[in-house]
């Protein structure tokens, strides 16, 4: 069984921030967090900030969002009455699809959007997913000007 998800709404600026941070992170994976309004942790509306974070793993194969970046992002979101509504990371040599590790780790934040950016080919490929109970469902990414 899948689940119904609203699209992920990003501004073009946020899209650029995410993709640029992914390229800047090469050869390692890059990662970051998305904030926005939420009710009971459920994202509700457009993303308000795409915040680049450090990859503690400094690895081309894995990522772990720097714990200090995580806390500062959380506090900034709370100050706006918002929540962290998702995260992104790059796959440097594979598809923009969650790996088994990504699916297992997503259990911690089941309401989030998970954005994958593949840098495998000439142009970046961004796709977004909801991941709950081991089920991966793709959702549309809508870019607002």
């Amino acid at each position, binding site marked *: 069984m899948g689940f119904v998800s609203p699209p992920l709404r990003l501004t073009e600026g946020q899209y650029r921030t995410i993709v640029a941070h992914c390229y800047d992170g090469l050869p390692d994976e890059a*990662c970051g*967090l998305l904030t926005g309004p939420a009710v009971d*942790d459920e994202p509700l509306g457009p993303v308000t900030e795409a915040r680049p974070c450090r990859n503690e*793993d400094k690895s081309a*194969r*894995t*990522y*772990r*969002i720097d*714990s*200090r970046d*995580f*806390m500062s992002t*959380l*506090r900034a979101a709370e100050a706006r009455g918002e929540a962290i509504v998702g*995260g992104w*990371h790059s796959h440097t040599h594979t598809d923009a699809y*969650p*790996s*088994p*590790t*990504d699916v297992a*780790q*997503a*259990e*911690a*934040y089941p309401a989030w959007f998970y954005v994958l950016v593949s840098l495998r080919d000439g142009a970046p490929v961004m796709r977004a997913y909801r991941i709950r109970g081991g089920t991966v469902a793709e959702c549309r990414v809508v870019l607002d000007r």
Partner: protein
Amino acid sequence: MYTRDVPVEVRLPTLLRPHAGGAASVTAEGATVGDVFADLAARYPGLSDQLVDESGSIHKFVNVYRNDDDVRYLDQLDTKVTDGDVISILPAVAGG
């Protein structure tokens, strides 16, 4: 140096609440974060494995904060706590 046990609030993420009777926040006592975790483990045995690994270090996929500071950048489990501190446990955001 003499240290005394103080009560602190420990905030638990959704994922760990079933191990603590469903509570979002519990009070535990200790002079350090490690003491506080030991106190928690005595009452909620299921919580222990989620917080500390086999080698006795903070579990790889958990971030532990004293107020807003990750204790890994302080004194790990030896990080001292004082009355009124809040210990927040947040699952790490990680993957491959």
